[in-house]
């Protein structure tokens, strides 16, 4: 971090990685759990591997500016591939590994990728299928040869073969790699991140080396990141956040990243690594909370009572602290006992014992979830950012954490609120535009370098940014009452039994909700009560489950009552959806943001029924299976009315 990145010698990531490899060739850069053991590779390996891959690509005729699609779970080989591509002046385009063929085809075609470097057979199959329609794609390089022995396509190459070709190429061109690295400039595009987009087709945000270096470094300074940080790289590589945390900041600060063994082992690996720097979107915090709650429910009652008591105590304390009040003496006196009995062991169990700072961003986090983890003594903070800003816009500083704000701008970031109430920002991290989409670029980039965030918000007197909701989502009921759907949904989602919720109310007489139950938590709850069920659909329509969710809805209504502005927007009717909202069905994005418009169309019949007077509705929904085939689910869904909570006089 001491490096002066404004000089020509250190203005791109390949140059910075080379400095790391020279200064500390034997320090661990990436760990990956493979064959049950954490296998380490050093900064020396990082550069050597990237060099071999880069020269291999060069031997295939790679030209500066070529795009390389990168698809797979977080693997050292893929991070090396990102560095290799940048070293040759090319642009890596990471894709979501669980994208279906159609989504992948759009991006590979739009980005004009000539090469693809992928993890395994699953990705190779998709790319081979779409290659017929994307003639620009010349070569597909795979890391794991498993299952590919019978493939004879001439465009296929294993990573080992590519590196071998690179080593041969180096004999005739010994200075090629260093020359190409030296030609790189800070203004060059470093990466194109396709934003999943809650509306319309994906847009490729181009970020330059300078965008990323300046922003990542400012954030690292603001949060005092050290070279001994440990981070678990488990979020999709296609998401700009992973690129900034696991790649940009890791190289800039020279800390180690850890790649989990498989997607199914993440929670276990989290505990083994015990990261010091941790990032999770609200949905991960929610699922962590759900795991904890389910396990507490399974305890014998004395244990359950003790845990329940201390968790409530911690949350009361934290809530008081966040509100700036002084908590009562007996609570403070009991906290150390709670730490010994409950908080410490729980943190250790979750793998969050060593966390110095953890973040949540991407969406508003339910206050209850936030308070829960902070109450355990985990320094969770909110961060506000977006792809187009190279992530960081504001961060909550230590000691300035609040429930309802997302913190203050980091260095070099300016904020202002447009007359319409939209948050605007300007910073060195502001992107170079959307790839081949100037129309979209013009829509978000205003005069003087100001960027539209798309969020409605305001700055409080202390300079903290508060976000209300997506600018286009803050609406009013027919009677004029302000209604912020996401705010209500987050309250619902605090319940371990609610996985996802969609609230409706714009220009309607009252607020209604479509609820998705959490199969793990509700299934567990049902089993303990001896309620038999056959499928998700069957379970979701049980009267007992409706009773259970109704209690949660009533709790939300009571807590809405505390808010002067929003108390008019209580949920009056709800129904439980017969199927889980699924990115394959385009109901939520790959990053699990609800696509309201689409859901509004797809479930129009259900929504109408919520505003009618029947207590049942028919639904017919198309589902897409993992292999792309489609089918139809038909179900009979119940509708439940809920009374509004009244203020106690």
């Amino acid at each position, binding site marked *: 971090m001491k490096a002066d990145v404004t000089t020509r010698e250190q203005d791109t990531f390949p140059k910075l990685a080379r400095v790391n490899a020279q200064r500390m060739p034997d320090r661990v850069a990436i760990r990956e759990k*493979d*064959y*049950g*053991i954490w296998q380490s590779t050093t900064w020396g390996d990082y550069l050597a591997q990237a060099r071999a891959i880069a020269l291999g690509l060069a031997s295939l005729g790679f030209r500066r500016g070529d795009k390389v699609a990168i698809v797979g779970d977080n693997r050292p080989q893929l991070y090396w591939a990102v560095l290799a591509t940048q070293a040759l002046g090319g642009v890596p385009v990471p894709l979501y590994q669980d994208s279906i063929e159609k989504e992948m085809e759009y991006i590979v075609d739009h980005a004009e990728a000539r090469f693809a470097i992928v993890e395994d057979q699953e990705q190779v199959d998709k790319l081979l299928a779409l290659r017929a329609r994307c003639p620009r794609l010349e070569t597909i390089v795979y890391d794991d040869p*498993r*299952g590919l*022995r*019978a493939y004879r396509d001439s465009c296929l190459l294993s990573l080992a073969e590519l590196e071998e070709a690179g080593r041969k190429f180096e004999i005739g061109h010994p200075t090629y790699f260093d020359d190409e690295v030296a030609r790189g400039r800070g203004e060059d595009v470093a990466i194109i991140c396709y934003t999943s987009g809650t509306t319309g087709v994906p847009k490729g945000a181009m970020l330059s080396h300078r965008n990323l270096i300046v922003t990542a470094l400012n954030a690292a300074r603001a949060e005092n990141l050290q070279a001994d940080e440990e981070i678990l790289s488990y979020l999709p590589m296609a998401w700009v956040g992973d690129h900034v945390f696991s790649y940009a900041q890791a190289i800039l600060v020279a800390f180690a990243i850890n790649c989990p*063994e*498989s997607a*199914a*082992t993440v929670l*276990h690996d989290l505990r083994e690594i015990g990261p010091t720097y941790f990032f999770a979107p609200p949905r991960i915090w929610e699922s962590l909370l759900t795991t904890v709650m389910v396990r507490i429910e399974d305890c014998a009652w004395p244990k359950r009572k003790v845990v329940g008591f201390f968790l409530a105590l911690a949350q009361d304390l934290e809530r008081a602290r966040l509100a700036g009040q002084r908590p009562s003496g007996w609570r403070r006196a009991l906290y150390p006992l709670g730490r010994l009995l409950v908080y410490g062991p729980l943190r250790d169990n979750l793998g969050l014992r060593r966390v110095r700072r953890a973040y949540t961003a991407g969406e508003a986090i339910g206050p209850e979830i936030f308070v829960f983890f902070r109450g355990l003594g985990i320094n969770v903070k909110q961060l506000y950012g977006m792809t187009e800003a190279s992530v960081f816009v504001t961060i909550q500083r230590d000691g300035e954490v609040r429930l309802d704000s997302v913190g203050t701008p980091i260095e070099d970031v300016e904020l202002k609120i447009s007359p319409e109430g939209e948050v605007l920002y300007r910073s060195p991290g502001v992107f170079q535009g959307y790839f081949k989409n100037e129309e979209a670029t013009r829509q978000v980039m205003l005069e003087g370098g100001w960027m539209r965030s798309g969020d409605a918000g305001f700055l409080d007197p202390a300079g903290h940014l508060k976000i209300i909701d997506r600018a286009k989502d803050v609406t009013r009921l027919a009677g004029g009452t302000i209604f912020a759907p996401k705010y209500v949904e987050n309250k619902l989602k605090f319940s371990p039994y609610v996985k996802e919720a969609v609230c409706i109310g714009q220009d309607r007489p009252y607020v209604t909700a479509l609820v998705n139950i959490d199969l793990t938590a509700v299934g567990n709850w049902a089993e303990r009560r001896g309620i038999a069920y056959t499928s998700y659909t069957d379970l979701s329509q049980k009267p007992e489950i409706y009773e259970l969710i109704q209690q949660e809805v009533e709790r939300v209504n009571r807590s809405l009552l505390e808010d002067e502005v929003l108390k008019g927007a209580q949920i009056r009717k709800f129904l439980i959806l017969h199927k889980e909202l699924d990115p394959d069905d385009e109901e939520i994005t790959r990053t699990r943001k609800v696509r309201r418009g689409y859901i509004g169309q797809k479930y129009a019949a259900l929504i109408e029924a919520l505003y009618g007077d029947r207590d049942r509705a028919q639904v017919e929904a198309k589902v897409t299976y993992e292999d792309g085939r489609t089918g139809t689910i038909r179900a009979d869904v119940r509708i439940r009315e809920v009374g509004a909570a009244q203020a106690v006089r």
Partner: protein
Amino acid sequence: MTAEAAGPLLEVEGVSVRFGALLALSGVSLNVQRGEILAIIGPNGAGKTTLLNVISGFYHPYEGRILFEGRDRTRLSPPDVAELGVARTFQNVALFKGMSVLDNLMTGRLLKMGGHFLLDAIWWGPARRQELANRAFVERVIDFLEIQSIRKTPAGKLPYGLQKRVELGRALAAEPKLLLLDEPMAGMNVEEKEDMSRFILDVNGEFGTTIALIEHDMGVVMDISDRVAVLDYGRKIADGPPEHVRKDAAVLDAYLGAGHD
């Protein structure tokens, strides 16, 4: 290559097995070629599992002989057969239910462990090296079968499909030359069957393991096997590539019930 190595891996010659008055197998002859996937099919009670039990040394035939890599080993006991390089899975899952998946797989390595009581006790020197090498191999199997997330889970707590996969893993841990699978997909749903088919094909392709399997799902049999042998009432009634067997008149009779008064 010697003439012996070029011959069939396993030769079953005119084997008959009798349980009291019941003739379970009568004069069955069957070869298993190196590197192939052979499916053994037939109606219930045709003698498929008996044949597998004869091959693995669990039953001994009262006539006929069995050659493995060209050597007669008709009368060997199951442990001796295992030592030759034959591993198997069972129709009903036979795992150590209270033991973790990892430990279950380690039992598959038992034959590869020399073992010295004292050295094992203090986990020193060769004992330690051996344990590490065995664990490393088992980890490759775990990686191969994609069961990393259940490494430490007790086998009995797993869903049925996964238990089947673990059982396959235990057989693989023994690094067999010949792998016998007794109904590897029984009771599985379509998705689990697809996964298991892929694993069987990959075992055959990546490790070059010869596989003989009993299976009832004809779709699976036709998809993954190189050759199909059909048993009916203890007799082999057909043997050949799947597309031939599918059209064989005797096989159709056996399955459709015609010709059996």
